[in-house]
């Protein structure tokens, strides 16, 4: 019997009742996860029984909304609810084992809600492309994908990111008030590019060290 996976929508108010229903029906609690999106945080709760895996998604939870806890029904959810609070800033009411924000000691608050500027730009671009229409966007995307792929293949990821940024700057959609944000975005992109540059060279050193060790060991 193969695994049967379902993605179903859920409203925030129905959550405690759903947990109780699932417990009665013999489902076990699998996990709870959060995704940062443009419209807030998506919460997903998964339940499983034998070969059936059901994922319920609550879309767009805004900061400040109180989410009811499911630890009364499923105590093992305390780990995920503490994590959601510490990493995403989701406020959960009624967690039986609440660490009060000290589950993880972090240097940044709500780190998983931070999206880098390069990523934001890339995601907005993808949304625009999809919205522009299937056929026309399809050809354009394939062309750009090919350019991006070539760039990646030849190891010039940096140039591809720069090309994207140049395109973003050239597009007339930027409001004048966002200029400052652009400059900081550029500075951040420069940092990101430096980091991306660093990563491959570290790999080479590692490989050389391992090769040396292997030679010595053999």
């Amino acid at each position, binding site marked *: 019997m193969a695994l049967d996976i379902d993605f179903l929508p859920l409203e925030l108010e129905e959550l405690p009742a759903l947990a109780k229903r699932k417990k009665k029906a013999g489902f076990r609690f699998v996990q709870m996860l959060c995704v940062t999106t443009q419209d807030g945080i998506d919460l*997903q709760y998964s339940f499983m029984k034998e070969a059936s895996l059901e994922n319920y998604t609550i879309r767009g939870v805004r900061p400040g909304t109180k989410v009811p806890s499911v630890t009364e029904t499923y105590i093992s959810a305390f780990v995920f609810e503490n994590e959601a609070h510490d990493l995403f800033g989701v406020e959960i009411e009624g967690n039986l084992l609440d660490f009060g924000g000290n589950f993880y000691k972090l240097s940044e608050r709500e780190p998983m809600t931070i999206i880098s500027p390069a990523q934001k730009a890339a995601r907005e671009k993808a949304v625009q492309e999809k919205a522009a229409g299937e056929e026309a966007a399809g050809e354009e995307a394939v062309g750009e994908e090919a350019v991006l792929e070539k760039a990646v293949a030849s190891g010039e990821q940096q140039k591809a990111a720069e090309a994207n940024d140049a395109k973003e700057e050239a597009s007339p959609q930027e409001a004048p008030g966002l200029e400052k944000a652009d400059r900081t975005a550029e500075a951040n992109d420069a940092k990101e590019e430096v980091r991306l540059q660093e990563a491959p060279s570290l790999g080479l050193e590692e490989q050389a060290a391992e090769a040396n060790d292997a030679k010595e060991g053999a």
Partner: protein
Amino acid sequence: MGKATVIPFGPQHPVLPEPLHLDLVVEDEVVIEAIPQIGFVHRGLERLVQTRDYHQFIYIAERICGICAFGHSMGYAETVEKLMGIEIPPRAEFLRAVWHELSRVHSHLLWMGLAADAFGFESLFMHCWRLRERILDLFEATTGGRVIFSVVKVGGVTRDISPDMFERFATTLSGIKGEYNQICKAFLTDASVKNRTVDVGTISQQAALDQCMVGPFARASNVNNDIRALGNGAYGALSDFKPILDSQGDCYARVKVRALEVLQSIDIINELIAQIPAGDIAVEVKGSPALGAEASNVLEQPRGECYYYARGNGTKNLERMRMRTPTSQNLAGMTTALAGCDLADVNMIVLTIDPCISCTER
């Protein structure tokens, strides 16, 4: 009626391979309550999906945990393949399953060694790890690495195994069996070992169901939740797969379940090798996951069921990659098992959930 004292356990402790902090509230050497504190291994790698594209992220996924490394790379690749609707060749599925079962053998042997060390039987720890070296030699011969393999990629696997190498697998595994049976005898019949494990940290079946425990930890309390029974991937080619269950629910039962799973895995490997189809080992993967696409996947790793979730956003980077590992689910069960035990049994009980804290915290 004694006075309650709080004894801190960890994060640095000779029996713990990983940092975990427990505040043990103790009264006259009996633990009343155990409050866990994790976060020492939190690196925050789930946010790295923003700086590594979905091909490169597999190297991060493998390094979530060194013991379950293969499981995570396989689970990640399967999830992204589901997300993008990619079908991998059957030979790749069989190769992945063979390496995964070998990973299970090495992980359980590792755990048995650490469990022996936890109750003070150091020479048994040495014997288990000596046998494990032979499994690591097989890994090194086929993948190039002892701990982190990097043989899985989105679309298949990167290396093939030749028929000669499969012969070597068969010989090594049958060679291990004889010595392994002796080790099992020590674990399961020795009186001093039984003294430390029987009726220690018992969890009933109802408690195991309430706490939603997974893996051999739950199977020792008679909860059948082995994902391999669902027959995904190459596991569907197995003629007869029955999860190993035990109804006692104490530390002895957990040792027994894992010890028997090693033998079962060796049989599975032999069966898969006999049936492996010829063909390609990978397909080419181009393009990006679609905007708004999501996929989830479960995999039975040595420590239990691991849940993966991926969401795409039209770019080469995934929007979200989530790995829920078995130990995060078992933490609640561990705190229950610790309540009411003797102070001297704390290390044994903590080890029997097979904690993989680096998996939990990522």
